[in-house]
């Protein structure tokens, strides 16, 4: 099948599925329910197939890295290729116990959790650094952000109310009447953008995510 027909097929299928799903949400016609259930099951199966393809692609990439002995990376790829099938195999062999399998549990608790927490802690420094960057009063806007941020911090920290009882009042006002309307504005515009994006996808006008298409 030519590339053009493949693309057309994708758009036609997208449009049909989208129309059925929208109809099922708004209309009470019972005959549509089995169809939408079936579509959702297909979507799940297709998603799982895509995950399978992703896994195969991952193995291929890391196999090639080992084959080429890429400096500084090949041994990490080897590590992945050892643990990937090992944990899959354990999961398959111990379907009854699943994640409660002693070996799986040991690896998870003593390797994954420990390593994960160590690495997660590193990201904390970036958050501090970013907060400093955001709160530098270089402009009037940034100064306002700094003042508002300090008041909200003092609202949430018990010491704020001890210093001055007005901090929680101003902080709560900023959160409820300063932040909420702005956030709702963004939510409404995002929803409109989403509808427009969906409509363009429905008509086959939004094709950038399928192999480019921005001619």
């Amino acid at each position, binding site marked *: 099948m030519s590339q053009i027909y493949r693309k057309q097929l994708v758009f036609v299928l997208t449009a049909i599925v989208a129309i059925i799903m*929208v109809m099922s*949400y*708004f*209309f*009470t*016609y019972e005959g549509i329910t089995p169809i939408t259930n079936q579509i959702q099951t297909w*979507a799940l199966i297709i*998603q799982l197939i*895509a*995950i399978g*393809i*992703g*896994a195969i*692609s*991952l193995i*291929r*990439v890391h196999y*090639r*890295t080992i084959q080429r002995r890429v400096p500084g990376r090949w041994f990490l790829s080897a590590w992945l290729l050892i643990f990937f099938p090992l944990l899959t195999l354990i999961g398959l062999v111990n379907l009854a116990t699943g994640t409660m399998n002693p070996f799986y549990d040991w690896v998870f608790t003593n390797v994954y959790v420990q*390593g*994960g*927490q*160590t*690495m*997660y802690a*590193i*990201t904390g420094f*970036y*958050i501090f*650094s*970013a907060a400093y*960057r*955001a709160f530098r009063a270089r402009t009037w806007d940034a100064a306002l952000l700094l003042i508002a941020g300090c008041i909200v911090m003092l609202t949430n920290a018990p010491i704020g109310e001890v210093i001055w009882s007005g901090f929680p009042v101003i902080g709560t006002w900023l959160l409820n009447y300063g932040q909420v309307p702005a*956030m709702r504005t*963004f*939510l*409404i*515009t*995002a929803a*409109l*953008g*989403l*509808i*427009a*994006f*969906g*409509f*363009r996808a429905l*008509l086959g*006008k*939004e094709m*950038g*995510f*399928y*192999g*480019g*298409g*921005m*001619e």
Partner: protein
Amino acid sequence: MAIISEGTLIGFALLVLAFVLFYLLMYLARTGYKISARTFPAVVALPEAVGRAAEMGKPIYYTTGLGPTTLNDPLNGLQILAGISILGYVTRLAVKSGVKVFYYTPVPDSLPLVEETMRTAYLAEGKPEEFDTNLINFAADQDSSLTASLGFIQREKPASSILLGGFYYESVVLGEAGNIVGALQIGGTANTHQMPFMVATCDYMLLSEELYAASATIAGDPDVLGSLKGEDILKMIILLILVIGALLSVAGVNTIIDILGI
């Protein structure tokens, strides 16, 4: 028996209104009605980001978000697709300039789509042999796996970092990592909880619906410009309803609230 599901009538009416408006304006745009759309500075900065990378001989870091999600996710799925659309454009620019774009994702079901998009971009620029699947990096969606991206940014010091898609807390960490290495940063998300962090850390930003429109405005397609105009008209209608509803509500009349079923 009611044909429309309970409580969805107004939503359905607004959706139909939106679709009719979009279609009408798309039709008008196609038939010559001039629609001007503002340019997004973040979109204009994309070639600059690629050019900077070409001049410095450094790669580009690109991600559509590193949080736990899938393409089926109603909040992040379409944002990721919008990010992948722009990835296609950026990759084509990068191929022309001989720059490598390294893409990071934790979304397994998006991998085949990304591979197809990048492969097609190389093909479109006449350099299919240069495409390498090593450019697409899969990192697990746990917080700790974020360090894979941080490691890349620290080691390779990309000239530009592009963060367009559905983001969670990683936006602040990646944004700061890019700042530390002096990368030109372009961010964009419709997740309201992450916008302030992106504004603080990125040089250019696509806010909210701009993310969905960005990929389309690049092409300057009249259909897309028509739908953008439709969005603006809908915003005005919603604003009008909000103002009238608020004024009536203050006066003790709840008609609009009752109609909308709030």
